[in-house]
């Protein structure tokens, strides 16, 4: 008798423990798994504002750097799965397609300024880009003008830098007269630390991929031939041999190091993008004033590059969880529409996060780099699209990064870089499409 009572009590205890906490929610709520750590604070604030205004609960979780895929996998399997998440283009979409709601006909889709910002496949819209970004070689106007005014310069106007040859002679002349110009190098250190190597293994690699795609007239590839790898080598050699530090020191240099060098006028050129404005603008007397900032296209010696513009695109797409409850999906769509159309939302996107958002109501960002990017387009230069979103996997980028670093340190040959680029692409593509 006693034994039975104890069993019973124990069972009841357990049941209450496990079932007592389940909750119900009919109004729907939003759970956003954010990708960009640097915008975490801005999203949290925006979420709070939305909740205050509408009473709808919005939770924002940001994955740790490099952990987005892991976090997404874990979270998607939970009972409270994210209702809003991100994929980084067609490659990311392949994994999560079954979980992406078709956004055709949604109000937020109608707000897009251009249909190319929708991530489409099989007549369905799986994702919506929310930030258009541009990168190139940011330069310090004051220092570059000082070079133009010097007697050793062969190029006298920034307009005359329009291909790899002219650009490389500017770089070499700056490097060999660095003392006279008061700099430590033409380029900031091309740091290959994990915080910085994406600038080269990913963004810089875009150029050879882009040119090959254009030449072959394709938008993605299961095999890459590496037709423009000589150009990749040209620009990489230029970066590593004309920077503030010896090529052997690059392996442990960080993004912070490079930004600091640029901010303090130790280097003239800095490959980075519009998102970097907040880090390099003048703050507390350090940094560059808006009128001192310029940005050049990245030239690699490809034919016809005189007409080439900056690299513009997006790799962040919003997706709505197709497995979420209908109420949650609706709440999420409403939230997205609010973000892209309401005053608070657009202000946060443009100012707090510094995005150029491809939506009709988007505010203009207070970012001089964005303005210069727009000028390139209005001057009729062809923007370089972000072909790197079709890179088959992160493994590919990492192998390329290692090969580039070893090459810079004199511990590896360019053949290794080519192998990582070409053979790595093929095997990683095959692995991802099994």
């Amino acid at each position, binding site marked *: 008798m006693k034994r039975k009572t104890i069993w019973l009590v124990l069972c009841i205890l357990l049941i209450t423990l496990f079932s007592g906490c389940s909750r119900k929610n009919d109004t729907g709520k939003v759970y956003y798994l954010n990708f960009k750590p640097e915008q975490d604070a801005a999203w949290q604030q925006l979420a709070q504002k939305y909740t205050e205004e509408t009473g709808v609960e919005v939770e924002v979780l940001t994955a740790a750097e490099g952990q987005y895929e892991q976090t997404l996998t874990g979270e998607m399997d939970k009972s409270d799965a994210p209702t809003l998440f991100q994929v980084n283009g067609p490659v990311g979409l392949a*994994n999560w397609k079954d979980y992406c709601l078709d956004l055709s006909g949604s109000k937020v889709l109608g707000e897009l300024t251009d249909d190319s910002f929708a991530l489409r496949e099989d007549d369905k819209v799986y994702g919506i880009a929310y930030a258009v970004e541009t990168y190139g070689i940011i330069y310090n106007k004051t220092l570059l003008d000082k070079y133009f005014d010097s007697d050793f310069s062969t190029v006298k106007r920034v307009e005359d830098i329009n291909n790899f040859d002219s650009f490389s002679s500017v770089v070499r002349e700056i490097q060999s007269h660095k003392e006279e110009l008061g700099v430590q190098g033409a380029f900031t250190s091309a740091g290959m630390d994990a915080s910085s190597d994406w600038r080269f293994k990913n963004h810089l690699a875009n150029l050879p991929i882009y040119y090959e795609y254009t030449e072959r007239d394709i938008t993605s590839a299961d095999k890459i031939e590496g037709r423009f790898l000589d150009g990749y080598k040209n620009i990489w050699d230029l970066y590593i041999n004309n920077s503030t530090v010896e090529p052997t*020191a690059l*392996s442990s240099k960080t993004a912070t190091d490079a930004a600091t060098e640029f901010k303090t006028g130790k280097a003239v050129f800095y490959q980075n993008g519009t998102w970097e404005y907040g880090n390099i603008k003048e703050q507390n007397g350090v940094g560059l004033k808006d009128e001192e900032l310029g940005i050049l296209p990245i030239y690699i010696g490809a034919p016809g590059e005189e007409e080439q513009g900056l690299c513009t695109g997006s790799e962040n797409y919003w997706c709505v969880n197709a497995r979420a409850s209908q109420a949650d999906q609706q709440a999420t769509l409403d939230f997205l529409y609010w973000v892209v159309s309401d005053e608070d939302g657009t202000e946060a996107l443009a100012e707090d996060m510094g995005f150029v958002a491809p939506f009709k109501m988007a505010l203009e960002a207070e970012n001089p780099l964005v303005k210069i990017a727009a000028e390139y387009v209005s001057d009729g230069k062809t923007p370089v699209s972000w072909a790197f979103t079709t890179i088959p996997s992160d493994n590919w980028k990492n192998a390329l990064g290692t090969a580039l670093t070893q090459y810079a340190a004199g511990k590896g040959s360019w053949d290794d870089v080519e192998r990582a680029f070409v*053979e790595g692409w093929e095997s990683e593509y095959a*692995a991802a499409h099994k």
Partner: protein
Amino acid sequence: MNSNLRRWAPLFLGPTLVAFCIGFVYPFLHGVYLSFCRFITTGDATWVGFNNYIEALSDPSFVHSFWFTALFTAVSVIAVNALAFAVALALTGQVRGRNIFRTVFFSPNLIGGIVLGYIWQLIFNGILANFGTALVLEAKYGFWGLVILMCWQQVGYMMIIYIAGLQSVPKSLYEAARIDGASRWQLLRNVTVPMVMPSITVCTFLTLTGSFKLFDQNLALTGGAPGVVGEGGSMVYRTEMLALNIYNTFYGPGSARGVGQAKAVLFFILVAFIAFWQLRYTRKREVQL
């Protein structure tokens, strides 16, 4: 007593058993089941038979991580145990301030693997920078880096166990051997080592399974880097150990989750086999007094 106690099973066994089912038995069985499935989330698993196992075994990165782990384990088990034994031997001898040394040597054990990894990353990179290279550039740096880290962390712990073993050896045995004219080397080989065999069993077991299952330190120190495209065109992370390889397979591209689970099952079988074999092997060498 016995029958009296049985009635209390729900109270004495119940909580642990329930938690054990939640925290181990069910996840374990579910894991075995999922290793035969293809899935992105557990909700949409479809049965694929042994496909995942075939894929796991034909994955060059898995094979590489196995050999890397095996080599690392072999080196670190020997290094840690040899150092720990030597230190323990010295510290049970005539050394002033042995308690202080004991305290110091043991202390790295209290620091977590993630934190340890970051500390040593800074140190190794600081040293290697003088030679124009870095930890993540060559697999050999990562390998020896892990070995050094492992020694730094584990020697103190194993030393404590060896000290306990050494102190339990009866003094009379040494005296008897000395009277028989045994040299210092003979004393060590024929008296000390056989007598501390239980400690050796425990220490090899702990270092063996610990090294084999290492994850946090691996993740924080190198994260598996460098990732290199080999001759065959396939990409391998050169310092990726088994646990990290499984983790990366699992949380990497969507289609590989079942493969990750299959790798985990293989990993488990391997660890179980090694642990069993090692215990049998060293237990046989223990002497009973």
